[in-house]
């Protein structure tokens, strides 16, 4: 169920090159992400993984060569959790600045319960820990209807159980015809096939 995915790609990057501070981070990188695929971007620290993610999701619009085509609006989770300390987790998700969707209370309750924040729905977020902030952010994955997920280090500050649950979620998203592009230092333990994109060597088959 890997490269057989038919139709137009959800995300296509054509010969991306990036030079930062006189150093070439990657060169002529091309990748096509179809529904039903999970891509992991590989590279050591400072290799340009985050830069590539920002180019793929559209936050970086110049300073690189090449072209990125997105056929759907992706959901992007960056390094910052985008959780307002003054708002409760429920308010954070309900009025999320990403403009994704309007969710009912039940949906939010379920999503927060899935990330282990049951009972924290209506406390101010500044009483939560950094890891819990990241979990609030991950709850967006349970709510989202976006087909393409771009996740930059989604497992940072998440405990073992949370990582397992998130990986299961990624697998079910991919099985449902969605696509995931993510960076992570840990090897993924998921039931689906993992495609690897290496910043130096390109697509690894």
């Amino acid at each position: 169920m890997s490269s057989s995915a038919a139709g137009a790609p959800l995300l296509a990057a054509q010969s991306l090159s990036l030079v930062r501070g006189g150093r070439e981070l990657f060169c002529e990188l091309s990748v096509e992400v179809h529904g039903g695929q999970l891509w992991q971007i590989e590279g050591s620290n400072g290799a340009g993984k985050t830069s590539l993610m920002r180019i793929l999701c559209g936050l970086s619009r110049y300073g690189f060569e090449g072209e990125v085509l997105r056929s759907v609006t992706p959901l992007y989770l960056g390094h910052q959790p985008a959780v307002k300390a003054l708002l409760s987790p429920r308010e954070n998700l309900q009025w999320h600045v990403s403009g994704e969707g309007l969710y009912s209370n039940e949906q939010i309750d379920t999503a927060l319960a899935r990330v282990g924040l049951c009972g924290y729905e209506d406390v101010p977020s500044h009483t939560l820990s950094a890891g819990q902030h990241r979990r609030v952010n991950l709850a967006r994955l349970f709510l989202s209807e976006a087909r393409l997920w771009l996740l930059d280090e989604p497992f940072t500050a998440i405990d073992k159980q949370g990582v397992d649950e998130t990986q299961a979620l990624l697998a079910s998203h991919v099985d449902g015809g969605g696509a995931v592009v993510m960076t992570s230092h840990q090897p993924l333990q998921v039931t689906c096939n993992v495609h690897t994109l290496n910043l130096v060597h390109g697509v690894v088959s």
Partner: protein
Amino acid sequence: MWTFFHKLGSPPWLYAIAGAILRWLVPITLVALVGGMVWGLLLTSPDFRQGNSYRIIYIHVPAAVVALAGYYVMAIAGAISLIWRMKMADVVMKAAAPVGAALTFIALLTGAIWGKPTWGTWWVWDARITSMLILLFLYLGVVALYEAFDNKEAAGKACAVLSLVGMVNIPIIYKSVDWWYSLHQPASIKFSGESTIDPSMLYPLLLMIAAFYALFTCCLLMNMRAELLQRESRTQWVKKIAGKEGRR
């Protein structure tokens, strides 16, 4: 036409053509500047009202005119850089800002010096001088914003937005200040209208305006060349030039 446009986007070509233009433009500029100054200082007769102090007009007015035009050059380059993503437009913008600021400074300073014998005071909150002061702030804002960004590409885009905002605002600022001055204008200060200028005084003025435009172009091109070298310092064509000219 399109090949010309494409060539404009090519740094080595731009560097070479700017060098070729400068080779004859710099001497012409210097001759025009010296000629205009000598003409204005030595050969014209003094104004019947202001006496010899009016000779400052030959640097004050050209500097002010070109400073204002320079802002528009900068803003239009900014628009090109934002709309067509042309990197060379960023270079033009970056190169224009300090020159424009320097010319505005000249206009302000000579205006103040001119004010002393004419109005008896160094500084008058006259509409035109106040507008020039605001123009200086706008220029300095662009320079400061550019320097504040570490990422020079983002700096260029940010300055482009700022200079466009400034361009929309310049007429509004000028009109407001003009109106404000007419509201508060003390009766003792009067201006001699420039429309009554005598041809014998006008010709050197026109020469000086042309000379300042040429000066602006020279500085613009020279700054662009330096900026191009810095931006392209990793490329082969710059290394070749460095290998040829850098050893001394």
